[in-house]
């Protein structure tokens, strides 16, 4: 090959790609230096019998075989997690979007409301939350005190296997602050002049919502939907603190990652836990890929 041509091919490739890679440089250092190593290691460990305390031994696909053929708790925890994802994510997003729309109007005292609504999300997951939730949802808790006004005698929501998962869904919705803030930031980015122009054309409020607000908000809706779904699949802390790490009662709040955590740190089967984690990754990756594929039909970018 002609040397001059080769140089110019290189320099062209350099010119075309260098800026992107330079902006990504910190990320690359982090990715190759800190992130990818542990990820690959965990993939390797999913084919071993690693017990945390002694060196791992290769067991082939045993962990994956056990998962699908001989582990009722794998199925039970997957069922709990799917139920949680299906109900908590849409409800939380709808709630967050509704409140964000309400708080985006020009009203007196809005910063105060925004702050108040965000407060529950500030609490994170402390021991205090576990005690609070019991105060609310136990048999003699506040929720039942309230229902008693209407003559309804409620069960002990938090400790009855039929309802306990719902108390965690309520907790997840209660902490809706983060998607709300992201929605608010998204609403902020919609240029006001578009509304002005539309109202000059005599467009109604609901028409403006459907024709301007929602389409321009779709990148943010898309983001929140993906992130909340991933987070819900990985959800660990609420169940961990409220059931004391047990998945109580009768494994009705045994989230997938809680089960994974038990396997890894309580029963010393990190190899098996790694296999569980990689199956979850596969599942979530499929969901995300599907979302990205369909996104071109409903997400509106400006590029």
């Amino acid at each position: 090959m002609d040397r001059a041509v080769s140089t110019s091919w290189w320099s062209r490739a350099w010119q075309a790609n260098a800026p992107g890679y330079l902006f990504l440089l910190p990320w690359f250092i982090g990715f190759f230096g800190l992130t990818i190593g542990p990820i690959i290691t965990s993939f390797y460990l999913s084919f071993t019998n690693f017990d945390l305390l002694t060196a791992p031994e290769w067991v082939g696909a045993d962990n994956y075989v056990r998962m699908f053929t001989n582990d009722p708790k794998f199925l039970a925890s997957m069922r709990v997690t799917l139920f949680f994802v299906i109900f908590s994510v849409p409800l939380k997003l709808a709630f967050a979007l509704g409140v964000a729309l309400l708080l985006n109007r020009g009203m007196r005292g809005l910063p105060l409301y925004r702050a108040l609504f965000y407060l529950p999300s500030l609490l994170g997951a402390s021991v205090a939350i576990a005690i609070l939730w019991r105060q609310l949802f136990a048999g003699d808790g506040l929720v039942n005190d309230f229902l008693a006004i209407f003559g309804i005698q409620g069960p002990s929501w938090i400790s009855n296997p039929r309802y306990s998962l719902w108390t965690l869904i309520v907790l997840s919705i209660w902490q809706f602050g983060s998607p709300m803030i992201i929605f608010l930031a998204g609403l902020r980015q919609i240029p006001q002049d578009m509304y002005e122009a539309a109202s000059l054309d005599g467009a109604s409020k609901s028409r403006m919502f459907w024709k301007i607000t929602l389409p321009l908000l779709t990148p943010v809706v898309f983001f929140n939907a993906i992130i909340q779904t991933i987070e819900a699949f990985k959800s660990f802390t609420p169940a961990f603190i409220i059931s004391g790490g047990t998945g109580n009662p009768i494994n009705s709040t045994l989230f997938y990652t809680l089960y994974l955590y038990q396997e890894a740190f309580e029963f010393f089967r990190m190899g098996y836990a790694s296999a569980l984690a990689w199956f979850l990754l596969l599942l979530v990756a499929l969901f995300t890929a599907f979302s990205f594929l369909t996104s071109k039909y409903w997400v509106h970018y400006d590029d």
Partner: protein
Amino acid sequence: MTLRIDRRQFLMGSTALAVAAGISPAFAAEALRMIFWGSQARADRTYGVTDLYAKAGGPAVQGEFLAWGDYWPKLATQTAGGNAPDIIQMDYRYIVEYAKRNAIAPLDEFVGGALPLADFDKDQLDGGKVDGKLYGISLGANSVALMINTVDFEKAGLELPGQNTTYADLPAMAEAFASKGVGKKLIADGSGSEPMFENWLRQRGKALYTADGKLAWEVQDAVDWFKMWADLRAAGVCVSAEDQALDTGPLETTMLTLGKASVIPSNSNQLVAFQAINQDKITISNFPRIATDAPGGHYRKPSMFFSVGGSSAQKEEAAKLINFFVSNPDAAKVLGVERGIPCSVSVREALAPTLDAQSQVALNFVANLGSLLGVLPPSPPAKAGEIDSSLFRVISQEVGFGARSPEDAGNALFTGANDILSRAS
């Protein structure tokens, strides 16, 4: 040090560097590292002893303490990362797992030397053995016990339960509770309490596990057990399944603290902790008997051990410090009976007069079990903890919520436990 700063500088820039260098680790190389679970109250006592040790010329100790739930993942991570501390507080439930994998070191070579253990109780020493080798030194003996709300019993006009109380007496007591309007159930649902099951089995002349790690009970035992509790539940003697499921382990979720029942199964060394979060006066007693002449179900259990990290470079120094903890009378006075009753005769004698009233109660309880006391059971198999937390509790809840009959539950527990035991080997 300089070399590490250079690397940091490369990554973080000089401002962050100054900060990071300012709070970099402060351990001297020869300090012993110690880790234990507990809260500040226990830490104060523990560090009081390490201070005494330093004053007596021993090496400095860098201690670290965490809550029970945080302790185990951190310890596992440190061990897996080759960074295990020199002295590790161990629990009966995990000692086999750690010992079998050499994550803690056998201490036999130090016995008589760094660890004289001259007047150490033999059964407590045996409790720290795995496969015949000594892996943990008990920091205190302990026994299962009922925590009892004394005020409720006064209201009901009943005497406190004692050595002659049997399971058969419970319904009559519950009736007194109901007629006098105490407003709670007599007792928590103990069907999912492994210690209570064990105690009941031992009174039947059985046990949880044999010395070679097999089940030491039969299906019928488990069926009878679940049946007994189902009857107590139906008669309103114990709390409902829904209430019992509020108990997720911590003391603040127990039926006693939540005010659902006046009696719960617990451990003698938790009396002080229970009293702190309960308004009414709490006391302890033995578990109910199956008959007044039944063999002893109780035993003095080593509640917490100190073990030495398997990769520790200072095993002998660590053993010396452990010895100070269990044999020095001044150390014992600082420790009290917070972790359990000291296992050395001379230490117990030095300690007894200095204890406060509640601690005396615990000490006397363990000392005066009398005919309730049986032999120490062999150390449980490695997977005993899994059987307890992932099987026993769940099945007991299934019976409580009506998803299983006692017969079904007994069978499920037996086969499930055997599955877990066989998978382990």
